[in-house]
């Protein structure tokens, strides 16, 4: 399996086109997305999106492009990430009993991050 890169996008939600733009930034640079989840963090529209994407020579270009999209506050490249499969934690036992498919939630345990905002390294 190709190695995976994980990013966190901190952004402002106005409508769902925000998510389309985030995804399209990778798509335009021919990068496949393995998984994605996001959530509205607060009532002021702050939103965070996590993506696991296949490593690619265009990866940094995509992050830089993403960092300068209107409504995106910053993009963090999460390094040394541990992805926890919650099946192992027994949290979804009930669900697993009733459904045949697996249900995996990735929770990045962050080792270090590199952050970009409007093309500049930050944080």
């Amino acid at each position: 399996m190709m190695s995976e890169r994980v990013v966190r996008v901190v952004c402002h939600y106005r409508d769902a086109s925000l998510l389309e733009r985030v995804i399209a930034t990778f798509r335009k640079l021919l990068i496949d997305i393995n998984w994605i989840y996001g959530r509205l963090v607060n009532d002021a529209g702050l939103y965070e999106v996590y993506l696991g994407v296949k490593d690619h020579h265009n990866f940094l270009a995509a992050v830089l492009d993403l960092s300068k999209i209107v409504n995106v506050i910053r993009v963090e490249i999460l390094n040394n990430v541990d992805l926890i499969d919650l099946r192992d934690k027994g949290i979804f036992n009930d669900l697993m009993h009733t459904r045949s498919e697996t249900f995996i939630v990735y929770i990045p345990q962050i080792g270090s991050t590199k952050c970009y905002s409007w093309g500049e390294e930050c944080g």
Partner: protein
Amino acid sequence: MVTGAKLVVEALKREGVKVIFGIPGLSNMAIYDELYDYISNEEIRHILMRHEQGAAHAADGYARITGRPGVCTATSGPGTMNLVTGLITAYWDNSPVVAITGQVPRAVIGRKAFQEADVLGVMQHIAKYVVQLKDAKEIPLWIKNAFYIASTGKPGPVVVDIPRDLLMAEVDDIVWADEPLIDGYKPFKDNIRDEDIDKAIDILVNAERPLILAGSGVMWSGASEELIKLSELLLCPIVSTLLGKAAVPHDYPLYLGVVGYYGRAEANMALLESDAILVVGARLSDRTIPTFKDLQEGGRRIIIINIDPTDIKKLPIDVDVKICGDVKVALRALLNRILNISHNSSRYNWISRIKELKEFYAKYYYVEDDEFGLKPWKVLKTIREVLPPDAIVTTGVGQHQMWIANFWDVLQPRTLLTSGGMGTMGFGLPAAIGAKVARPDKVVVDLDGDGSFLMTMNNLAVTIEENLPILVVIFDNRSLGLVRQVQRMFFRGRVVGVDFGSSPDYVKLAESFGAVGYDVGSYEDLKTAVRRSINDAITSVIRVPTYRGELALPTLPPGGSLKEVILYDVRKGS
């Protein structure tokens, strides 16, 4: 209480909008209803274009001349979708355009309603930003935001999509925003560090063969004067990108021309021979630098000034000095530093070499007439002689654009408008309309190809009815010449799908619109026609018959290096 449509028009007026290029339809009709009074009072001028693509190009042309956002409007569905080509053209060339589009009412959005299109879905990929409004009260703020986003950082088009019910809605408690408010937007900041300026100066002063590569950032920043001053102080020759050509007066003796795929051979050679290069406001697209090996070879030192730090970081080359900031501010910092140090830039050998390169390649370009009719370089030279130095020239896309890239002399900054990044055929005439609206006092000329002109020539009617006299010169080779050229040179001569027949007759076509048509057969005829057109101040179409086999040279083979420049047509053996 006022309507949402009234808020739109009033907000545009508050942004200083004097002209709107557009076409009304069901979903933006309420805006036109409010515009009625503003147009009657001559507060805002409306230019009725003949296709929305032309409206976007005209707004783009207006923006490129004034430096301020041009405004266009279209109705929902097909109207807005027709803007797409124009908006992506503006986006690729960093031109600030604000498009106000009507949308179907919210009650029917997403139900395949009459003239509905997914504007967010489409425009988010071809514009700097698109917003669909949810409440009429948002209109003043988002019009302000649109102008701010369009004109700051790296400029670009912004679309404000407004459902029809919001335009019709009655609004009280109107809040006029004094400042833009956009969550998650900030213009690129100037990050010009003293140590980078010192390092850049050190490299440039100590180089034996330094070169400046000027991009469109010089034009947008209004930094032509600073650029020339720096070149003079350093005795540093200048080459440019296609769009950067508009930033450098060509009578400056150290300017060599456009570099790149269809660039001047001496410009490409100077780049290859340079030992240090200062890239100013250029993103180094594949059209300018077809292969980065050319830049990286030979230990050349590279300094880049760009307002967008990602344009530098994304380059697959090692950059010695990265200066992130506005071009004018950065060039002034370099000038201030260089004026405070003692240096002796004689560079006799380098300047002699530049002169030698210019003279050597000139003999390939300036071939006098043969049995193949009027020569494009001489046609351009003839027109240049007759036009005032400050005349504004637009182009379409194709062979004629490449001839202009190499043989048109820009004498004043910001007097050449062309679609560089997107290469959009049909740009020339509507962009000329935008330029003429912006600067009615200037002579505006669309130097076009027949294929390109035919794509948006319906807008000739606009020039007549709006009293916008424009001179159109058509290099008529009855073919999509550049495609034909590539087929002949690189597809084994299998010419297919490119040649036109005898239709149309351009003189009759011009006359049918109320313009004047000329069919010229000699350079003297051409000169006379151009002079008459300028004097008569009426839109004129001058057809210049052009040999179908004429090539746009120099060129490179596909994916080739700047070293592989092709200078002449091998079939002619000259």
